């Protein structure tokens, strides 16, 4: 009996101790990096300086950079992370009558039109836009402002290709040759954002009409035993041979920055990446990520300050090593691993966001029919 009571007491204690916010009348802040805590004795005025940013799981920022923003502006930032980019946007749309946040970050060019059509954002012509290249600005009304971009591309396992006596293919269509049978892993475009981006790259490259369309390409890929996974993690870690996993496929759809990440996250054990980018014409797709102010934001002034901050050099320079994508602002310096290993593809495929939104569902259905059924 004593043991039972001791255990119950311990459990209750554990429950009670673990909940700092349980007895407080106000909800605890969702994230409290040391410097962004509102000063003690916060007045109602301080309350209005609280900003909620809704974003996806992969978002990150340096503690220092965020602290500097808070110190300068007096705005304390809370982050609401709720799944992948698509899920987050859907949540923002579903809760548009009572917005969960002030700022939405992470809508990319494949979802841009859906976000704009849902009418959930307020225009803001940030002065910091002046420093950004025009080809990244896809919304003339400035409801969504570009923050960063990255390229989806095929990575190859250098050692595996060498062992098999293969040189990286020079053209996308080479992947349908017998030499590349059973060598490529891609992700399902309905469940994975790099998967969709790669499909869009092939659509942009091969086109809808002509002697050899994107559908022909995928039919041939299927015949050549392309491996399809639902998400990036399984593709990269369980099927790709160039990562730390035990996979058997030497080619995988990933990002141009993945080789740089392999060096960066090797604890100094690698000076060269084990993987390379397959820089073939039309073999990559540029994903641009945008930020916007949600309609009905409780604190629009602070939201504007935060958007400015995201576009200014300090945050922009922080982007590469936090999220492994390129800053939108060309003035922001790139870290060494990026300069050395994250190549920029010369001819990425190009598709207008409107066209993507119009035809995405149909393309995915057609792709599923060709590759999986």
């Amino acid at each position: 009996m004593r043991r039972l009571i001791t255990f119950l007491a311990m459990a209750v204690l554990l429950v009670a101790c673990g909940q700092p916010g349980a007895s407080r009348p106000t909800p605890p802040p969702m994230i409290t990096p040391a410097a962004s805590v509102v000063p003690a004795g916060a007045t109602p005025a301080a309350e209005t300086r609280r900003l909620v940013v809704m974003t996806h799981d992969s978002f990150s920022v340096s503690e220092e950079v965020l602290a500097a923003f808070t110190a300068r502006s007096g705005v304390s930032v809370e982050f609401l992370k709720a799944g992948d980019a698509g899920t987050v946007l859907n949540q923002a749309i579903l809760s548009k009558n009572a917005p969960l946040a002030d700022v939405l970050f992470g809508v990319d060019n494949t979802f841009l039109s859906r976000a704009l059509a849902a009418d959930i954002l307020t225009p803001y012509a940030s002065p910091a836009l002046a420093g950004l290249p025009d080809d990244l600005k896809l919304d003339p009304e400035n409801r969504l402002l570009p923050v960063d971009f990255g390229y989806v591309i095929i990575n190859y396992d250098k050692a595996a290709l060498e062992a098999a006596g293969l040189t990286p293919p020079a053209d996308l269509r080479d992947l349908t040759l017998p030499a590349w049978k059973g060598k490529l892993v891609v992700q399902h475009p309905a469940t994975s954002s790099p998967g969709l981006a790669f499909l869009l790259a092939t659509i942009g490259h091969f086109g809808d009409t002509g002697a050899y369309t994107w559908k022909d390409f995928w039919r041939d890929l299927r015949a050549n035993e392309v491996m399809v996974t639902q998400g990036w993690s399984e593709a990269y870690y369980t099927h790709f041979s160039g990562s730390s996993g035990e996979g058997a496929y030497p080619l995988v759809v990933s990002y141009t920055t993945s080789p740089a990440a392999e060096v960066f996250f090797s604890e100094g054990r690698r000076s060269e990446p084990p993987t390379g980018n397959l820089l073939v014409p039309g073999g990559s797709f540029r994903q641009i990520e945008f930020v916007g102010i949600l309609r009905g934001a409780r604190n629009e002034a602070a939201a504007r300050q935060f958007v400015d901050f995201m576009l200014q050099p300090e945050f922009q320079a922080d982007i590469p090593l936090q999220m492994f994508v390129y800053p939108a602002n060309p003035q922001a310096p790139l870290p060494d691993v990026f300069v050395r290993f994250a190549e920029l593809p010369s001819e990425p495929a190009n598709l207008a966001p409107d066209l993507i939104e119009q035809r995405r569902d149909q393309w995915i259905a057609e792709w599923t029919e060709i590759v999986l059924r």
Partner: protein
Amino acid sequence: MSSRSEQLLIRAGRNVALILPVLFLGLFFFYPLFTIIRLSFANGLAGLLETLGARYYWRVLAFTAGQAALSTALTLAVGLPGAYVFARYEFPGKALLRAVAGVPFVMPTVVVAVALGALLGPRGLINQGLQTALGLAAPPIGLSGLQAVLLAHIFYNYTVVLRLVGGFWANLDPRLEEAAAVLGASRLQALLRVTLPLLAPALGAAALLIFIFTFTSFGVMVILGGPRLATLEVEIYRQTAQLLRLDVAATLALIQLVCTLGLSFAYTRLAARVTTPLELQPRSYTTRPPRAPRERLLVGATMLLITLLLGAPLAALALRSVLAPGPGTPHFTLAAYLALGQNLTGSAFFVPPTAAIANSLRIAATTTLLALSIGVPAAYLLARRPAPPGGRSGREQRATAGMALLDALFMLPLGTSAVTLGLGYLVALSVPGLGGLRTSPWLIPVLHTLVALPFVIRALAPVLRARSPRQREAAALLGASPAQVWLRVELPQIAPALAIGAVFAFTVSLGEFGATLLLARPDAPTLPVMIFRFLGQPGALNYGQALALATILMLVTALGFLLLERLRPPGGEF
């Protein structure tokens, strides 16, 4: 106390036992579910009709049900010998093996895929070993998507059979079989005609839980099954997360609900009918060390099976977490574990592993207490014996049917699409005034409790139904007060089932991932959420840290089991 006031007290207790669980279910399950379904059909029912009319979705439903039935049958077949061995024999390492068998239940699927790949994949341990030993050019073992899914389902659910069936079996009086043998029955006859009918409620409970669990399988299907296999849950995710076709998703979620409800209802009606009152016996009385060679062989085979089927993949994972991957030959290193404590990129979202362990444990402990305090009264209420068939009034019959329906309703959260319910929570909580709950530390434990409740109820109900009133009556006759009867007679009888319920509530919470990812605060991730984050980035260190955290999750789970199992009620061992 007069018998009249005692009766009033009992009635009041019954009402509380009814109101508390129903309120909980209504508020935290039906309300958000209703919200999202209403929103999904806000533009009319065209999507519903279109979905119901599409042959494709009926094929998906057939596959979903088929693979769930196959998974359930296989898990029962593989698990029953183990349940028998754990029920009847004492042997060294029993508690540890039982804990090991429960660990897979909490492992995130991505990690299990890594573990199975490390063992059975084309470049895995077994294939490479066989290739070297036999001089083969190609890996001899290649699992198809469906085979991998079935294997993983057995891997995950073995513990359900072991604990639910084995736990009930352990308290069955072995003299019943012995009497059958004395009367001339063969072993097989005794098993088929005496033991199995007595076990039926527990067997059915395990089968029901496994079926519903695999019926809504998502991670296993998505990661191990490959893109050609799709369950309803996978389709719901695709329709919701990427295509925002909420009406299609809601229709599919409703189909899932109807199937779960129908099956649970059928089970409850059946279980109430086949239950036989029993004199449950303490475990010290029913178990003994194996003596005959045949018995030793059986125990040995079970130990081997658990070690190979469940232990080996887990061990492979732990091994990978302390081996440095290339370049160069693999060697022992704790680098991944050490890196967990360092904020290498200076990220504002850095969470030390100790904090994630504390989060996971806090949520699991809260869930366990919540699930027990709601599930125990509910189980008592639902397990009340129906009146004998002859003397039943129409009102009593209706009440019994009502209870069976209520029982089935409690199973629903287990068969509900996590994607749908998660969105329901978000929409319901975006109503002004309820927003505070969105960031409440109670939110995640409440969600986990919904999934844990079916386990608590299913673990308790067979025991509550089967216990015979005679032992309690005898105690009362000897002068024990009702409180003493409960504490000294009843509690020891139901304690093992309580422990099983607690273990599962704890496990469900430690391993839950989908809803947690959607609703957890970014500064308070659980272990599975952290593992998911690390596996979302390329690089050896991220991979290593994910495996290190998975190993920590395994250890935390196993320790939790061993601790929970040490709980013994007063008044004797059962």
